[in-house]
């Protein structure tokens, strides 16, 4: 099913379908690598820019009215004693927040008062004065179907084996550790988790950290320094970008999942060396993610590995969204492509999405892990993981890797992802990303539809995540559905019906080719 979409530049869209693996490693072409990025329709792009222009004009008018006290100023102001200080915020910085984000605040930061499982209870809020003031109505919206939390394998539960084990551990160990791993924060439960994770991934060793974000930002600086080169995918997560910056290495960005651009930059890196002096780089590190959560795309791992071997670079794979969610046994994007984990130098992941816990890990060969144990900033200065959280991961890992229940969860997630994605395409939504990814982003483009979509879906009893600028390019606002193994077939069907209804109301059937659903 390879389409004929050309690489168009409508607004900021890419528009590439490729079937196969770009000519690299043809023997791994067991699956058709299907990724869709349908280009933005021209009329949508024009209306989106127009929409932003109108908002900006009204924003200026309202700001002027607030400046001359025609409109009441609800925002907090600086302490009058400090009026001679240099202003803390540049006046334009919060323009977008004041005039756009505030008005649709009710679709963000929705307070939850239950376990974030297949259904959640949302505390109702009422906003007035264009979003400046809010209050709780006292009502709780119960049993809203949850299409927004990162609960891929459905381990966000408040009853069952995981919960019972976590409670027992909490009673035995308490919640806090109050010390870092290198001092006296290294408990037996941490060592057990590291060994279990290493066995699960089939690698030599593994080290765990208390937070996924800190895993990236504190460990990349230990692996590379000023005389190294980092080749980072254009859509990498903020934690990876911060880690790269803190390391001091030279960073070169290659186009998202574009193997030709990566090869060009690798070749230039090895051949021409460091800028000006042309001394060779000490190391070259390629940083990619397993599943990109905003695009729903899966990294072209065989392609990247082939290039890595050819140019002797090292590969850092961030599997925050793919561990547990891809592969027949949930071992992530390496299992998905049939590649052994030892081929990737640094396998990083987080426990927040598929394991219903918190924290991150880095796995690889023993030399790497011992080096991180000795030199990681997180191991030296940051508190270790809380024991009940460790136990949650241990229990969920034992379920995923050993039991029928685990296999069923993985199968249900894959089934849900496929059904939901096909369903949305049939309705006519433009759906980005790979067919197998558990993250399903669909495009809504116009800024006014961002707020409207969130509200319409909540009215119909569904909690969805809508994202706009600056998390996405300005023209490409989207709705990001996160599939979960906890969602039953009927819930998926209901969700599709609601999505169809809202698509009709908001005219979101942009897709040019409705036959993409086969």
């Amino acid at each position, binding site marked *: 099913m390879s389409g004929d979409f050309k690489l168009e530049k409508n607004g900021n869209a890419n528009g590439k379908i490729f079937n196969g693996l770009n000519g690299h490693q043809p023997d791994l072409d067991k699956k058709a690598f299907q990724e869709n990025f349908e280009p933005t329709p021209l009329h949508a792009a024009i209306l989106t820019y127009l929409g932003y222009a109108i908002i900006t004009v009204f924003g200026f008018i309202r700001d002027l009215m607030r400046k001359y006290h025609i409109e009441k100023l609800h925002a*907090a102001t600086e*302490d009058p004693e400090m009026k001679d200080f*240099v202003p*803390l*915020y540049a006046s334009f910085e*919060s323009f977008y*927040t004041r005039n756009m984000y505030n008005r649709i605040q009710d679709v963000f*930061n929705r*307070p*939850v008062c239950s*376990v*974030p499982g297949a259904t*959640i209870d949302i505390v109702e809020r009422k906003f007035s004065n264009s979003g400046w003031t809010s209050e709780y109505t006292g009502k709780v919206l119960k049993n809203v179907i*949850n299409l*927004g*939390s990162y609960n891929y394998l459905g381990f*966000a539960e*408040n009853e069952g084996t995981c*919960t019972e084990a976590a409670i027992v551990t909490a009673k*035995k160990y*308490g*919640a*806090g*550790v*109050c*010390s870092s791993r*290198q*001092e*006296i*924060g*290294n*408990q*037996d439960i941490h*060592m057990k988790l590291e060994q279990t994770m290493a066995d699960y991934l089939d690698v030599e060793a593994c080290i765990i950290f208390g937070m996924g*974000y*800190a895993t990236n*930002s504190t460990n990349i*600086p*230990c*692996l590379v320094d000023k005389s190294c080169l980092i080749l980072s995918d254009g859509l990498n*997560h903020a934690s990876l970008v911060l880690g790269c910056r*803190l390391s001091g290495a030279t960073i070169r960005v290659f186009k998202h999942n574009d193997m030709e651009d990566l090869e060009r930059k690798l*070749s230039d890196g*090895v*051949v021409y060396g460091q800028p000006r002096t042309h001394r060779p780089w000490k190391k070259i590190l390629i940083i990619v993610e397993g599943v990109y959560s905003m695009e729903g795309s899966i990294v072209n791992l065989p392609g990247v590995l082939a290039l890595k071997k050819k140019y*002797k*670079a*090292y590969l850092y794979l961030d599997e925050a969204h793919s561990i547990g969610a891809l592969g027949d046994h949930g071992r992530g994007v390496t299992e998905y492509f049939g590649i052994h984990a030892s081929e990737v130098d640094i396998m990083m992941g987080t426990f927040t999405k598929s394991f219903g816990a918190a924290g991150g890990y880095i796995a690889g060969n023993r030399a790497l892990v*011992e*080096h*991180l*144990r*000795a030199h990681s*900033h997180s191991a*030296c200065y940051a*508190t270790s993981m*809380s024991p009940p*959280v460790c136990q*949650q991961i241990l229990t969920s890992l034992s379920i995923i890797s050993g039991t029928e229940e685990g296999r069923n969860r993985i199968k249900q997630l894959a089934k849900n992802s496929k059904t939901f994605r096909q369903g949305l395409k049939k309705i006519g939504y433009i759906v980005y990303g790979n067919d197998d990814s558990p993250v399903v982003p669909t495009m809504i483009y116009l800024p006014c539809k961002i707020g409207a979509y969130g509200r319409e879906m909540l009215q119909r009893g569904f*909690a969805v995540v809508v994202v706009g600028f600056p998390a996405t390019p300005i023209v490409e606002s989207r709705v990001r559905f996160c599939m979960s193994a906890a969602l039953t077939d009927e819930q998926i069907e209901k969700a599709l019906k609601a999505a169809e209804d809202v698509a009709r109301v908001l005219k979101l059937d942009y897709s040019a080719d409705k036959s993409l659903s086969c």
Partner: protein
Amino acid sequence: MDVDKLWIVNEAIQSALQTPYHVIFEGLLVIWILRLIFSKPHKIPDKEEKLTAKEKKELVDLWKPEPLAPPVEKTLAETRPYRLVNGQVGKNIVINGHKCKNFASLNFLGLVGNKRVDDKIEKCIQNYGVGTCGPRTFYGTFDIHLELEKKLAEFMGAEEAVIYSYGFATVLSAIPAYAKKGDIIFADEAVSFAVQKGLQGSRSKVVYFKHNDMDDLEDKLKQQEKMDKKDPKKAAVVRKFMVVEGIYMNSGQICDLPKLVEFKYKYKVRLFVEESLSFGVLGKHGRGVTEHFNIPISKVDLVIACMENSLASGGGFTCGRHYVAGSQRLSAVGYVFSVSLPPLLAGAALEGLKISEENPEIFARLRQKASFFQNLLKGIKGIKLVGYPESPCFHLRRLHPVTPEKDLEFLHDVVDKCEKNGICITVATRTKAEVLSEWPASIRIAVSVQMSEKCLKEAAKVICHAVKEAFAEQRKS
């Protein structure tokens, strides 16, 4: 009129025909100018010649990268193995198989293993599960987070509090949310590693002043003022900040907050105070260094603290006025792009706060025990005690340092001997990546309010004995 014009043209043609070379030369010049105007710009060739594919392949084959990590044997030879704790990191701890009293973890209020806190954790897990499965913006805001933020703001007397899911990431994200490229930050040279990373992440110009030296800071502020006067336009957009800690992790000393607040208004520099070690320790109600010095918290622009020490939970928070603290919810990277704090940790922190409010005398007791213990240890020969007299977290250094490696070995020896005799202490771990890499090696002692006086006396005896033995052994070798 026309006739005159015609006559002039006729004259011109006549004179031109008389001097043909003139005309030809000027004609060629005009053609040349036209060609220059309409020709494409000439590309300056690269200084380097392009390499052929074969040459590139040869260079790729020749290049040998460094190994990603040094070999295992080398790493293991250079570092000490982790100490293994079986069970809770509470008042009593089983470390490397030895049953010890815990003087190493920052569990100041003794909340690890508290029954009320444990019950609250159980309730939270039964209600919410373990993880929140989402960042704050996308269904990761739970009612318990909002309750905790409100309680923290109330406890500290601030307008708003913002919670983060990891203590280390709190200050790492809070500073870059305000200080950007082009701004100036005056920081104490003894600030902890997390603060240093926050300063590095902000990309601002960082000016370090001598540890707790207010005169040095004033000098640097005055210098900056002079430079500002020379360029007032630039000064009007460059923000200035001061970053200090309430009690410094690296030295146990307290900052001079009244002087700092004075400088804030005199030199128009905003003040951020990192209170990880002073929150829940200083002040009549444990509100930290602002309560200790009787300064209203609104004078400090942002208080940054972590809940992993006194509150024995997880995560961190910042608090301040609405105007300052509110913007972190959209611009602090560790808040926006990270999953929120697990509800069980938020519940533990909430219960910890409630317990402290019900027993406000706990903070004075903690400080009294801390100074009691400090006095017991001050007398040990060959050891220098560094820290504010009432601080439950202080350092023991060698009085006459030899070399950094020998000092570190000596201190590890003391720690090992204490462990065998039932007292668990630790050497303050550091990496070479710190800004001040010549920081002297030290043992960091942490006193918990749970320790009885008898316990403290026994511990002091053990430490004294261990130090004597370690000195004796070093003299022999």
